[in-house]
């Protein structure tokens, strides 16, 4: 049976959700939560949104995604809207920096969107991260939905992953995956006055597609 075959409903033909190739992040619990048949991880040829407030673990997850992609010798790009990228923590997470194109947009969301558009239409990238974490909602909410439709059209039927890191959903219906990230626990060690930030426990839950349960994983502090 063709997995991509259309289904006849009372309201006409409804194409089933396309089964996409995926890129596992390397975090077992998260990959298990995102598994769909044999595929697990971030869907290729689609937009994925990583959502959460400050210090929730969005950047940690983005680094894991880039590390997984560069480990497969793919070329990736980081569109850094607010010049916030830290190559040291990315390299510590296993991102091959020589395979990463870093684009600093100087707090200009419009430049970031135009740069992402050029990258998506150039093709051949494994993962493109559009970092909108520090873009205020009054700016991000003004991005026309047509941008996201254009981006989605540009990457569908390609192996490229477009990951948006942000506070609130922006691409909405254009995104194939929406992950909510939350920091559950911060572990400090040492006596009061001599404490040390050790690690954080993060929790990811899938808002779209809706999946029961959540994935828990830990991230060690950079020492």
């Amino acid at each position, binding site marked *: 049976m063709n997995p991509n075959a259309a289904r006849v409903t009372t309201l006409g033909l409804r194409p089933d959700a396309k089964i996409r190739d995926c890129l596992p992040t390397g*975090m077992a619990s998260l990959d298990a939560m995102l598994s769909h048949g044999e595929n697990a991880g971030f869907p290729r040829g689609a937009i994925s949104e990583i959502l959460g*407030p*400050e*210090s929730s*673990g969005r*950047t*940690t*997850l983005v*680094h894991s995604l880039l*590390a997984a992609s560069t*480990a497969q*010798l*793919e*070329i990736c790009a980081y569109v850094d809207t*607010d*010049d916030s990228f*830290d*190559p*040291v*923590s*990315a390299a510590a*997470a*296993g991102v*091959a*920096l*020589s*395979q*990463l*194109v*870093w*684009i600093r*947009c*100087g707090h*200009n969301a419009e*430049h970031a969107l*135009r*740069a992402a558009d*050029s*990258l998506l239409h*150039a*093709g*051949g*990238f*494994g993962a493109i991260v559009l970092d909108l*974490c*520090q873009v205020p909602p009054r700016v991000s909410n003004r991005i026309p939905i047509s941008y996201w439709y254009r981006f989605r059209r540009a990457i569908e039927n390609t*192996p490229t992953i477009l990951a948006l890191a942000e506070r609130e959903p922006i691409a909405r219906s254009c995104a194939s995956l929406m992950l909510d990230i939350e920091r559950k626990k911060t572990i*400090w060690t*040492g006596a009061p*006055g001599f*404490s040390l*930030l050790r*690690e*954080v426990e993060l929790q990811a839950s899938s808002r779209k597609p809706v999946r029961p349960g959540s994935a828990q*994983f*830990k*991230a*060690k*502090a*950079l020492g």
Partner: protein
Amino acid sequence: MIFACLHGPADLPQIASAFSPSFEQTAPDTVIFRIDGLQRLHGSPHQIAEAIAQKAIEKYSGGGVNIAIAETADAAILAARNIPGITLLTNAAPHLNDLDVATLPLTDEMAQVFESWGIYTIEQLAQLPEIGLAERFGPHGVYLQQLARGVIHRPLKIFQPETTYEDRIELDHPVSLLEPLLFLIARLLNHQCARLLSNAMAANEVTIRLELEDRAEHIRTLRLPVPMRESKSLLKLLQMDLEAHPPAAPSIAISLALKPVHPRTVQTGIFLPVTPAPDKLELTLARIRGIVGEANVGIPQLLDTHHPQPFTLVPGPPIPSPQSRSSNPQGFRYFRPPLPATVSLDGNRPVRLSAPGIHGKVLNAAGPWRTSGDWWTTTVWNRDEWDIALSNGALYRIYCDSNWYVEGSYD
């Protein structure tokens, strides 16, 4: 095969090119070429030699050019370099017998040994036993003996003058707009790229020189990370560069120069992931540089230093390099520039923080981590760092170097 060799002080390539389009220049004063096809035009080898001599006299009165004709290239060279006038060697070796053995390319050691053996002429060298010579001198000894016997047959290494890929257009009227200028540049580029393609070459540097109406010059040079020869891609790169750096006055002449290099050959694998095509990637990055600025696009590179931000952004294309994945460390985000903060202290520990967009009570703090460096330069740094958990739920890294700043957040 019959070869003619010319030796003399004249401009020999020009004389040789009058008889054959392909010739070898073994030294600045020696050229050699084949004359097989000239027999119907000039007659016997001797007549050909006389025609060459006549041409040499016509071009350079006074002559002084030695001409040798032989059945092997090396015999002709040997004769032309050592026998004045016209030498015709139908059977090479006997005519060279009387030449000094020192006319062959001997090493100092070999010259001494031959002298001690009493070998003074080429004929004497040719008569030595080949096996014994190989045992004593190795392959070079055998090569010299074959040279002396005139039995080495080799193809010529054809002389190829250095090809330049340059062109220039002078305009009837000054052109100030970029679009008509690009139309003319495209014409130059198409022609030069076609030449590159026909010579199996590519360009890694493009220089455009605009001569301006006010007698100034506007020169732009594009250094390409990968050799390219597609005129459309090069034109687009030039367009974006000229849009970013337009000439100050209308142009009256355009010069274009391409630096030729061998094209890059890459072995692709069926199991390797698809990566952006180099020319397309360069074009994309050039377009993005036009949007965000030239210094803001590149590859992050870590620096060997303890500086708080030990990395830089280097231009250049991304290169696949396998890297092992380690554990899952916490990500960090910088605030660029760092946010100036007001920090309340209890003793020496921060208890409250206020910065643009960030306010709260410090719930937990680790520090201070004292770092300093570059005291031997003008960019000295010296600061105390703290990792703090704020009541707004976020984790920040703050530091104090006479003033307090929020450097970024753990995310």
